[in-house]
C-alpha cells in the first residue's frame, strides 16, 4: 500500500494493525503513552495524533491506513497539542523524578525532556499519594497517568485482572478490588504490569539496600547465583548488545563487591528437570495426576493456587531451580564447604519479580535470603562506576558451574519441557517427535516412546494462554500428559525484573542470545552433568528418593480468596449437643461445581422432613480440598465430590446414629 508521510511516498504493508504501527515500521515512532502492540487499542493518551489528508488531526493508534492517504506527523499544531497534553499530564503527576524507581527509564520523563517542557502552566494537583509496597510490585498512584496499560496487560495477556480503573474523572485510579493491597489479592507478581507501565506508578520493590547491608556484615558469607535469562538481557543496560560472555563478567563484578562464591542457577535447572522427568515417568506409569504441570515459574504456581485450586495436585512437586539449588547450597554445600548454614547469605539474581515472592513464601523461607532482579543488578553496576565491558569474564564457582544446554534454556519458553524430555529420552528412548504450533504461545509436541507409548506435551507462555489451556482442560477437550507454563510471554527472558523496555522485540532478541549461549555448551543432557550425578551418588540416592523428596520437593495449597466466617443459613435454636451441623463449601471451586444447588436442596429437606429437623445448615468458604469439589462437612466428617443423594444418605445415617447414642445415654 502506498501512502504519503510528511511529503514522502512510503510503501507500507497492507495488513498493518493501525497507522501508528505502520509508521513505526517505516522508521517513525509516533509519540505515545498508552499504545501496546501486545494488547487491545485504548486510545487514552492522545499523544499519537497525526494530521490526515490535510484536515483532520486524529489518533494514529486506532486509525486503519488506506491507500493514498496523506499523513503529516509533525506539524506545529500537533507539536503544540502534544506539548499541551504532556503539560496537563504532568500537572497532576508526582514529579519527584530523582527518587523514582523509574528515573531514567520513564517514558513520560523522556517526552517531557524532548518536548522541552520546563515550565508547566497549571498548578500541580497531586493525586492519591498512598504507596502500596506490601508486595514485590510497588504501586504509587501519584505517578499514574491512567494509560491503562497495566490493566490491559493484567487482564488480556495474563488473564489475572487483579487491578482495574476505579472511580471516575479526576479521582479515578488503578486499584485492586476494594483498594486492597496487592499482597491481599489474586495478583501473581509476574510483574508484567511493571514491564509495560510507562511511568513509576508500578515498579519493582528495590532490595539493593538489603544486599549492601548483608555485605557489611562480616559474619556473613555472601553467595550468589545467577539465573539463565539474566545473561540475555542485562547487556541492554550497557549497550553491549549481544555480548555472550556477560555472565562471566557479572561474576567478576560480584566478586569485586564482596561475594565469596557465585553459582549458576542452570545447574539447579538441570537438577529440577532430572527430578521432574522421573516424577513424570512415575505419573505416566501410574496414570495419575496428569497432565503434570511444571512448577518452575512461581507466578504460574500462584496462578494455579488462586484460580485453579482443583489442579494443584497436577503441579510437579519439584521445587523451582532457585529453591532447589538454594536448598542444595544450604543443606549440602554448606557441609561440604564447612561454612555454617546460618552464616550463608544466599542472593539469587533473577529476571523475575515473582521470585522475590517465592523466596518469601512460607514453604521456602530461610533458603534464599534475597532476590535481586536483573534491573537492580544493572543499577548496582552503574553505581559502582565499574566498566563491566572491561571486566574479564570469570569462571563460576565449583561445583555448580557445569550444566547442560537445557539448564540454560530454562530461561525461555519450552526450555523446561525440552530438558525434561531429554531426561525421559535418556531413560525410555524417544522414537519420534513432532512439533506443532496450536496458536501463538501454545506449542504441542507429539512424542512416541520406543516402547510404543504415545505422549503429548505442551509448552505455553503468558498466563492468558495458560488460561485458555486450563479452560480446555476443564472442559475435557484437551488431552495432554505434561504442560510447561511460563507466566511471561517468551518465558523468563520477558520477566518483570528485566530491563526496560521489555517488549516483544526485545524479548525475541533475548531468546536468540540465550539460544546462542546455550548452543556453545557441549553438555546436552542433565545426565551428563558430572556434579549432578555425584550429588545423587553421594546424597540423594536416586530421583524421587526419600532424601530427594526432603530437599528438592515441596507442596502447594489453595489460596483462600474469601477469608470469611461461616455464614448462618438456617440457624437452629437448640443446644449444640442436639445439633447436626452441615457446612456447605461455597468457595470458588465448590460453587462452580454446584455446591449452591446442594445447599438449596438441603434447606428444603431440613424444612420439610421430620428426621432432619435438628440439622443446622451453614455456608463456609474453602475446605481446602478443591480438587474434590464440591465439599460438604457433616460435623467433622468431610464428604467430597458430593451430590445431594450422597449427602442425604450419609446424613440420614449419621442422624440416626447420633440419636441412638443420645437415647442410650
Amino acid at each position: 500500500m502506498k501512502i504519503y508521510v510528511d511529503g514522502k511516498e512510503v510503501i507500507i504493508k497492507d495488513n498493518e494493525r493501525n497507522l501508528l504501527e505502520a509508521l513505526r515500521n517505516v522508521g517513525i515512532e509516533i509519540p505515545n503513552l498508552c499504545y501496546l502492540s501486545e494488547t487491545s487499542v485504548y486510545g487514552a493518551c492522545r499523544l499519537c495524533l497525526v494530521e490526515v489528508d490535510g484536515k483532520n488531526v486524529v489518533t494514529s493508534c486506532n486509525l486503519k491506513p488506506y491507500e493514498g492517504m496523506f499523513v503529516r506527523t509533525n506539524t506545529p499544531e500537533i507539536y503544540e497539542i502534544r506539548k499541551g497534553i504532556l503539560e496537563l499530564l504532568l500537572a497532576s503527576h508526582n514529579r519527584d523524578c530523582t527518587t523514582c524507581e523509574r528515573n531514567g527509564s520513564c517514558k513520560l520523563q523522556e517526552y517531557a525532556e524532548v518536548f522541552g517542557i520546563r515550565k508547566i502552566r497549571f498548578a500541580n494537583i497531586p493525586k492519591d499519594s498512598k504507596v502500596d509496597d506490601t508486595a514485590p510490585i510497588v504501586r504509587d498512584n501519584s505517578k499514574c497517568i491512567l494509560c491503562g496499560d497495566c490493566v490491559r496487560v493484567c487482564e488480556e495477556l495474563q488473564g489475572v485482572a487483579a487491578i482495574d480503573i476505579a472511580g471516575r474523572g479526576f479521582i479515578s485510579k488503578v486499584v485492586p478490588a476494594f483498594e486492597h493491597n496487592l499482597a491481599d489479592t489474586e495478583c501473581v507478581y509476574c510483574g508484567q504490569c511493571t514491564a509495560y507501565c510507562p511511568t513509576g506508578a508500578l515498579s519493582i520493590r528495590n532490595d539493593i539496600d538489603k544486599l549492601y547491608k548483608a555485605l557489611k556484615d562480616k559474619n556473613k558469607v555472601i553467595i550468589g547465583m545467577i539465573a539463565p535469562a539474566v545473561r540475555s538481557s542485562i547487556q541492554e543496560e550497557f549497550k553491549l548488545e549481544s555480548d555472550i560472555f556477560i555472565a562471566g563478567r557479572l561474576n567478576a563484578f560480584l566478586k569485586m563487591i564482596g561475594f565469596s562464591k557465585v553459582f549458576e542457577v542452570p545447574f539447579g535447572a538441570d537438577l529440577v528437570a532430572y527430578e521432574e522427568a522421573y516424577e513424570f515417568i512415575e505419573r505416566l506409569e501410574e496414570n495419575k495426576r496428569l497432565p503434570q504441570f511444571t512448577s518452575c515459574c512461581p507466578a504460574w504456581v500462584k496462578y494455579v493456587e488462586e484460580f485453579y485450586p482443583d489442579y494443584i495436585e497436577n503441579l510437579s512437586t519439584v521445587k523451582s531451580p532457585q529453591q532447589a539449588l538454594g536448598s542444595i547450597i544450604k543443606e549440602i554445600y554448606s557441609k561440604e564447604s564447612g561454612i555454617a548454614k546460618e552464616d550463608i547469605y544466599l542472593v539469587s539474581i533473577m529476571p523475575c519479580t515473582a521470585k522475590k515472592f517465592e523466596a518469601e513464601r512460607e514453604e521456602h523461607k530461610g533458603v534464599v535470603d534475597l532476590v535481586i532482579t536483573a534491573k537492580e543488578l544493572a543499577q548496582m553496576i552503574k553505581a559502582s562506576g565499574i566498566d563491566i565491558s572491561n571486566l574479564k569474564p570469570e569462571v563460576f564457582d565449583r561445583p555448580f558451574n557445569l550444566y547442560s544446554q537445557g539448564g540454560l534454556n530454562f530461561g525461555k519458553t519450552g526450555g523446561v519441557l525440552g530438558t525434561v524430555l531429554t531426561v525421559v529420552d535418556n531413560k525410555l528412548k524417544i522414537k519420534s517427535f513432532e512439533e506443532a504450533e496450536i496458536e501463538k504461545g501454545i506449542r504441542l509436541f507429539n512424542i512416541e516412546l520406543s516402547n510404543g507409548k504415545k505422549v503429548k506435551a505442551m509448552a505455553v507462555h503468558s498466563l492468558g494462554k495458560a488460561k485458555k489451556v486450563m479452560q480446555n482442560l476443564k472442559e475435557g477437550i484437551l488431552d495432554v500428559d505434561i504442560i510447561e507454563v511460563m507466566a511471561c510471554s517468551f518465558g523468563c527472558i520477558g520477566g518483570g525484573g528485566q530491563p526496560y523496555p521489555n517488549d516483544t522485540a526485545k524479548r525475541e532478541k533475548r531468546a536468540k542470545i540465550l539460544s546462542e549461549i546455550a548452543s556453545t555448551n557441549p553438555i546436552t543432557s542433565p545426565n551428563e552433568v558430572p556434579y549432578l550425578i555425584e550429588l545423587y551418588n553421594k546424597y540423594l540416592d536416586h530421583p524421587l528418593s526419600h532424601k530427594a523428596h526432603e530437599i528438592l520437593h515441596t507442596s502447594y495449597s489453595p489460596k483462600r480468596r474469601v477469608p470469611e466466617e461461616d455464614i448462618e443459613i438456617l440457624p437452629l435454636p437448640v443446644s449444640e449437643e442436639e445439633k447436626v451441623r452441615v457446612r456447605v463449601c461455597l468457595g470458588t471451586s465448590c460453587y462452580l461445581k454446584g455446591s449452591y444447588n446442594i445447599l438449596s436442596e438441603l434447606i428444603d429437606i431440613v424444612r420439610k422432613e421430620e428426621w432432619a429437623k435438628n440439622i443446622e445448615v451453614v455456608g463456609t468458604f474453602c475446605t481446602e480440598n478443591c480438587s474434590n469439589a464440591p465439599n460438604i462437612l457433616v460435623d467433622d466428617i468431610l464428604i467430597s465430590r458430593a451430590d445431594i443423594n450422597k449427602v442425604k444418605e450419609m446424613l440420614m445415617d449419621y442422624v440416626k446414629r447420633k440419636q441412638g447414642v443420645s437415647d442410650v445415654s
Partner: protein
Amino acid sequence: MKLKRNFAKVEEILKKHDYRKDNLIKILLDIQKEYRYLPEDVINYIGVALDIPPAKIYGVATFYAQFSLKPKGKYTILVCDGTACHMAGSTSLIESIKEELNISPGDVTEDLLFSLDQVGCLGACALAPVMVINEEVYGNLTPEKVKEIIKNLKEREMKNVENNK
C-alpha cells in the same frame, strides 16, 4: 456490628438476571436494594458466579455515583446542600446531626441505624433548608428541629426492639 447475611437472596437475584455478565449493573442495583449498599463478600460472590474479576466489578461500582460501597443506615439521612439550602444554613444542620449521632457525611452509625450524606439540590428550595430521611422530606429546619426528629426516630427504634423481645 456485622450484618448477618446469607447468599440465598443473592442467588435469587443472580437467577432473576440469568447469571449473565451483561446484566451486571442490574444485578448490582438489586443487590444494593437488598443490602442498602454493595457488601464486599457479595461482590466477590457474584464475581465467582458470573466469572467477572472482582477488580472489574469494583471498577463499575465506583464509576456510578448510584452505588455505595459503604453500608447505609436503616434511616438514610440526606441533607441538602444546594445553593438555597446552603444559604439557609444547611451546614448547621449537618453539625447538629454530628452532635446527635457522632457521624460525618458519608458515614454510618455503628448500629447501622443512621447514615448521613450531603447531597446537591433536592428540588425543594422553597422549604430550605431541607433534609430527606428515607424518602420523607423535612423542610424549614433548624438544628433543634433536626435533633428532635432524630430523637423521635431513635425512640421508635427502641420501642421496636422492646416489642420484639
